[in-house]
C-alpha cells in the first residue's frame, strides 16, 4: 500500500507503524522513547506528526504507535508540529538538564536550551522517563526495575529502592538509556547498578571482565549445549567456536 509523507509517495507494509514506514523511506522523525528492540510506548511524543484527512483537516497523531493504513497523508514538519516539538524538548531539557546524548542533539536541532530552573528546582536530573530501561528489563524477563509513583513524582526504581533479587546486573537498561541516566559503575572486579554490586567474570582466554556471574547463570538454560562457551567474552567466544568447529 502507498501513503504520502511530506509530499513523497512511500510504500508501506501492512501491520507496520508509521514511524518505521517513514524511516524505511528515508524520512527521519525524532523519537526518544522508541527503540527497535522494544514494544512501542508513545510517551515522549516527539514523533508526533499531522495526519490530513480527505477533507483537508489535520489531527496530531503519534507515529511510533500509529498503524499505517492505505492513503494516509502525513506531514512530519509542519509549523504546528515543529512548535509542539520545541515545547516538548523545552519541557524535557528543563526536567533533565544533565541529560546526555540524543536529547541534546535534538535540542540543538530545534534551537532549544534549558538549565532546569524554569519549572523545576532539580538541576541534577538526567532521566526523562522514557521507560526504555524498564521495558528492556521486562522484555528480558527479569522485571527488576519499573516505574513507580505517578504524575510529577514518577521515577524508575527497583522495588522499594532496595537491591532487587531479580536483577542480574546485565546493564541492558543502561545500554538502551538515551540520556545516560542510569548509574552503572564497572571496575575490573565489580559492577554496581541499582544499589546492587556484582562480581565480574573474566574471559578464560583474554582475561577481560565481560559479564556478571548472575548474568551467565541466567543465560545458561537459554543456550543449552553451548554452556562451555560462556567462559569466553563475546569476542573470544567467536574465535573459540570457530576453532572447535574446525577440529
Amino acid at each position, binding site marked *: 500500500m502507498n501513503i504520502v509523507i511530506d509530499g513523497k509517495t512511500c510504500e508501506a507494509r501492512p501491520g507496520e507503524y508509521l514511524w518505521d514506514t517513514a524511516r524505511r523511506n528515508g524520512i527521519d522523525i525524532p523519537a526518544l522513547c522508541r527503540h527497535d528492540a522494544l514494544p*512501542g*510506548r*508513545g*510517551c*515522549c*511524543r*516527539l514523533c*508526533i506528526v499531522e495526519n490530513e484527512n480527505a477533507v483537508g483537516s489535520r489531527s*496530531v*497523531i*503519534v507515529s511510533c*504507535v*500509529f*498503524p499505517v493504513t492505505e492513503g494516509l497523508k502525513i506531514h512530519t514538519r509542519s509549523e504546528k508540529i515543529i*512548535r*509542539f516539538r520545541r*515545547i*516538548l524538548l523545552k*519541557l*524535557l531539557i*528543563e*526536567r533533565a538538564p544533565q541529560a546526555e546524548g540524543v536529547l541534546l542533539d535534538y535540542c540543538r536541532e530545534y534551537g532549544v536550551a534549558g538549565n532546569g530552573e*524554569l*519549572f*523545576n528546582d532539580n538541576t541534577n536530573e538526567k532521566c*526523562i*522517563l522514557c*521507560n526504555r530501561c524498564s521495558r528492556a528489563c521486562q522484555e528480558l524477563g527479569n522485571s527488576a526495575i*519499573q*516505574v513507580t*509513583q*505517578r*504524575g*510529577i*513524582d*514518577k521515577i524508575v526504581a527497583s522495588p522499594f529502592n532496595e537491591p532487587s533479587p531479580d536483577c542480574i546486573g546485565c546493564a541492558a537498561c543502561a545500554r538502551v538509556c538515551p540520556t545516560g541516566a542510569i548509574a552503572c559503575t564497572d571496575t575490573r572486579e565489580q559492577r554496581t547498578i541499582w544499589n546492587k554490586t556484582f562480581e565480574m567474570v573474566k574471559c578464560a582466554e583474554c582475561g577481560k571482565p565481560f559479564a556478571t556471574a548472575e548474568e551467565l547463570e541466567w543465560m545458561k538454560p537459554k543456550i543449552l549445549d553451548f554452556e562451555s562457551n560462556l567462559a569466553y567474552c563475546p569476542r573470544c567466544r567467536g574465535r573459540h567456536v570457530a576453532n572447535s568447529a574446525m577440529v
Partner: protein
Amino acid sequence: MKKTILVCCGPGCIAYGGLDVAASFREQIATLKMDVKLETVIKQTGCHGFCSRGPLVRIMPDDITYYRVKPRDTEEILKSLDNKPVGRLLYHGVGGNILKQQETPFYSAQKKLALRNVGEIDPKNINDYKARGGYEALRKALTMEPEDIIAEIEKSGLRGRGGAGFPTGLKWRIAAEYDNFPKYVIMNGDEGDPGAFMDRALMEGDPHGVLEGVIICALAVGATKGYLYIRDEYALSLQSMKDALADAEKAGFLGDSILGSGRSLHIEVVRGGGAFVCGESTALIESIEGSIGEPRATFAYPTEQGLWNKPTIINNVETFINIPLIIDEGGAKFAETGTPTSKGTKVFSLAGKVRNSGLVEAPMGMTMRKIIFEIGGGIVGNRHFKAVQTGGPSGGALPESLLDLPIDFDTLVRYGSMMGSGGMIVMDDWTCMVAVAKYNIEFLAKESCGACVPCREGLRALSMILTRICEGKGEPVDLEIIKSICELLTQTSRCGLGKTAANPVMSTLKYFPEEYEEHIKEKRCRAGVCSMGRSTVVTDSADMAAIVAMAEAARKVSYGVQSKDKTGAES
C-alpha cells in the same frame, strides 16, 4: 396500618449520625412496644440527596420527611406517628412547614430516573428491589434478541455518563459485532473527581439496579465475564456491590445459567488501585490485568481490543443504572426527557458555596441557574455567585453570564468545560479563580499517570507558573507560556486526562482574565485568597512550634482551661 420509617444512611448522613438514629429507632420501638400499635419497619436506605440537612428520616406511606434528626428525637417521632407530625423537624418553607419531600424546592424540580430506588429501598434487601419491579427488565431482556436490546438502547439516545458522552447503544453495537470471544463487560466505579459522589450513592443505594444493567449489557454484547471496578476508598460501595452479587447469584440472576436460560455470566469485584487515572478506560483495563494503571498508547478502542485484548464494554455506574429503565419502559419513553442530543437525566453532586448541597438529578437541558438557585437554594450567606466548576478538576469554571446555558454534553464542551461525571462546585466572590485553577492543576499533576511528556511535564510547568502568579511573582510572559503549554496538552496527550487537563486554566483565563491581570500586574488578589508573597508563611518547625504555643495560650485564656492534664503534670 403498617408504616415504614426510612432512615437515610448515605455517607453524608452517616457522618451526621444516621446510623445512631436508626439504632435509636430500633431501641425505642423495642421499649415502647406496648404503646405503639402500628407495625413499623426501619430501613437503612441509600442517600436521599439532601446531604446538607442530614440525617433524613422519611415516614411512609404518609410521606413525611424530617431533617437533621438526632437520636433524642426518635421517641417523639414514634409517638407522633398517628398524631400531628413533629413540626420543628420539618422543612421550613416560605409558606410554612412542608411535609412531603417532593414539595420542597430542593426536590420539586428534580426528576429521578437513575435515583429512582435510591432512598426508597433497603439496598441490602434484594426483595425490596424486586418489589419495585427489579429484575423484571432482565426477564424481559432474556426474551429479546441481543440485536433488539441494542436497538432499544440506541432508540433511547443514552450517552455514557462517565464524562465523554459516547452513545451507549453504538458502543454496544460495535462490541457485539466482533466475532472474538470471550467478551467482557466492565463497570467503571472508580469515581475520583474531588467533590463528586454520584456513583457512590448509586452503588450504595441501589446496587441491584446497577447490577441488572451490567447483566443486560452482557446479554446484549455476548459477554460471559464481568468486572465491577470500584474505587478502593469506597468501602461501603464495595461491600454493597459484593452483597448484591452474592444475593443475585443466589436468586439465579447470575451464574452458569441466568434464570435457566442457558446464558452464563460470572461477575467479580475488583478493588481500584487508588489512582484517579484508573477511571480512564484503558488504564482501568491495565489495572484489572495487574499492570500499572497507565492508559494504553494504542489507537484501538476497548470495544475491539480491551481486557486481555478481547472486545470489552466499559460503562459508568450511572450509565448502567439507566439500562433496566430503558428495557422496562422502552427507549422512546426514555428519550422523551432531555434535549435533542442528550437524553434522560443526569445526577449531579452539588457542592461548594451553595445552600442545599447534595445529590441532585435533573433532566438534561435544565439551566445551571435553576440547579444552583432553585434546587440549590442560592449561595451561602447571600454572597455573590462567581463561577461554577462542572466536570471535576478537568472541567472548566463557567461565569454568571453563562448560567442560563442548558446543561447537556455538547453545550458544556462548546463553552470550554464538560459534563464530566457530574461534579458541580459552586464558588462565590470570596473565591480566587487563579487559585482554583492552581488547585485543579496541582491535583491533576499528582494524579496524572506520568507516562507521556506533555501531561507530566506540562502539568508540572503549569503548576509552577500558577504558583508563581499566586505568590505575586508572575510576569506577563507567563500567560503566553501557559497558553502554549495548554495547546500542547490538549493536542498531544495520550489520554483523556491530559487532553482535558488544560480546561481549568483555559476556562478561567477566558472568563476571568482580569483576575490573572491583577495578580500579575498589580500583585493583587481581589478575593483575598492568595498571599501574593506578603503574608507570614510558616516555613520551619520552629515557627510552627511558636504558633502552636500561642494558640495553646489563647485557648487557655478563652476557655479557662487548667494548665494541668489528667496525669497532673504541668503542660
